[in-house]
């Protein structure tokens, strides 16, 4: 049984002709990272929204832990899948621990508040992401990276086997990007969770691969998956050229840490490059 399984999934916004995506097949198993790559506007976020049950597929089906997602009661998906947004839009200055406690909503009755057990779970989650010392600070005063770690803690408090992240490092500086990546590695290594994430950076996938984390990647192009598999197999120079219109070289460095792979961008491709397929 797969953690998450999409068969022939397709979605079109109401009152629009063109599908956002179609014929998507995807499987996520325990203890692996699955990265969605693709240019802006290719439908990554909409695909994640469909898995979260915010939109309903109008083609194909989604199975979560073997159950058909169509039969979930509203909110039930939260027992199986947690979500980390690209950036939480601040409203009220809740404290960090209060934010994380909201991850317990799915286990808390409509007319009750989180119990002491829930509070312990929230603390444990903060411990894992290393934000325990910040627990009484207002969430609105955290830096982008710290806020993102708290969002991950909130997802952890939800105690699901899969976390969906939508470009979790998009707004972060160099160090905090690294911190979030390290946290993800830690989660997958130590807790056997799985992460399905959309990202704009092909090198993120190599970061995971270089650390021997089970990782697969899907390239989204022309409203469907162009190819999926191991980063080294999929993120070839020709594929990068095709979907991003960027000429890049896949380099391999022999380091003390072992052999590290990295995609090095050279330049954008112009219309003339199109005629010459050998460019890739």
């Amino acid at each position, binding site marked *: 049984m797969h953690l998450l399984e999409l068969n022939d999934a397709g979605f079109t916004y109401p009152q629009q002709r063109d599908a956002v995506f179609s014929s998507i097949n995807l499987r996520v198993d325990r203890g692996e990272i699955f990265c969605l790559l693709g240019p802006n506007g290719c439908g990554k976020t909409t695909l994640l929204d469909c898995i979260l049950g915010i939109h309903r597929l109008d083609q194909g089906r989604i199975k979560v832990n073997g159950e058909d997602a169509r039969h979930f009661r*509203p909110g039930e998906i939260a027992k199986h899948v947690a979500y980390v947004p690209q950036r939480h839009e601040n409203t*009220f200055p809740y404290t960090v621990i209060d934010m994380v406690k909201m991850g317990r909503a*799915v286990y*808390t009755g*409509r007319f009750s508040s989180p119990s002491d057990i829930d509070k312990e779970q929230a603390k444990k989650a903060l411990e894992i992401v290393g934000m325990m010392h910040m627990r009484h600070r207002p969430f609105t005063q955290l830096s982008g990276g710290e806020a993102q770690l708290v969002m991950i803690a909130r997802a952890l408090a939800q105690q699901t086997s899969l976390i969906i992240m939508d470009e979790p490092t998009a707004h972060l500086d160099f160090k905090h990007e690294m911190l979030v990546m390290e946290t993800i590695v830690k989660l997958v290594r130590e807790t056997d969770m799985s992460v399905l994430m959309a990202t704009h950076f092909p090198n993120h996938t190599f970061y995971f691969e270089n650390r021997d984390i089970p990782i697969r990647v899907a390239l989204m192009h022309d409203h469907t998956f162009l190819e999926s598999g191991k980063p080294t197999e999929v993120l070839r120079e020709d594929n990068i050229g095709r979907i991003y219109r960027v000429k890049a070289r896949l380099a391999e460095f022999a380091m003390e840490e072992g052999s590290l792979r990295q995609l090095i961008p050279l330049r954008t491709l112009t219309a003339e490059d199109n005629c010459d397929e050998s460019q890739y």
Partner: protein
Amino acid sequence: MLALAPVMAIILSLVIGRYPVSLSAIGQVVLNKLHLANYQVAQVHTVLIWDIRLPRAILGALVGACLAVSGAAFQGLFRNPLVSSGILGVSSGAGFGAALAIILFHGNTSATYGFAFAFALLAVLLSYMIGQVYNTTPTIMLVLGGVIVSSVFSSLISFTKYVADPYRELPSIVFWLMGSLATASYRDIMVAGIPMLVGLVGLMGIRWRINVLSMGDKEAHALGVNLKLDKGIVIFSATLATAGAVCVSGIIGWVGLIIPHICRMLVGNDNRVLIPSSMALGACFLVLVDDIGRIITGSEIPLGILTALIGAPFFVWLLKRTKGGGW
């Protein structure tokens, strides 16, 4: 502490007024009425304390609590600190209902209450229906629905003023719209108290969920909230509370905006604490402002005028002191 403060405010408002009464007289009247003792008290004291000031203070406390707490709940639900209890058109709906009843039934009190309450509910229902797209109710569409409905009912209020008899009906309408507790009686408490209490209890029950709802639709859904049902409960409770309050008191602005803010500065933004504090502070505030309205001049000043005149400077002072409380 939270429950005690409104009680203190109510007791205080029994003492003060243009006809001063001593605390011991109050104690005697109350004990007499509860059949716990049999003191000799002047009839005028009994009537003044038990039949005039007490129902007025209780009603004031209830109305204040309802307006403040609905404001707090709506601010959380709409993720906007500038929202107040009237956001979905409750007040303008009630205003139109009352104005209509004043014209049609020449100011019959029961008719005015009934119409005000019914139109308050109708206004919110319309806002909700306008906000409903694709079988969901995104927050922004609800706000838009509220704006549309409010403006329609505001025009209708103007229209009723325009057609009203300028000597008999127009003053009643204008006076009603300014808000007042002057005619408060136990019957008012019995009738309007039911929706108000149901609303208060509902909001108390669901208060932690308001935290989660304030994460925004997408995150709240992903956290396991049944958006439609939980939003519905919040809107329904807040609407019952406000409609119950408005139908007996008229339109009292500003309480639903300022009291939650003061509470946010004092106790923070966690709705588990914020909701009960807003109730308590709202109750105190309205009772005390009503007291001021009773004693400040020879004739009474309508509540709706005073809430802003007294609340605004206090709000500014608090803003300066707490540096905005983390905003």
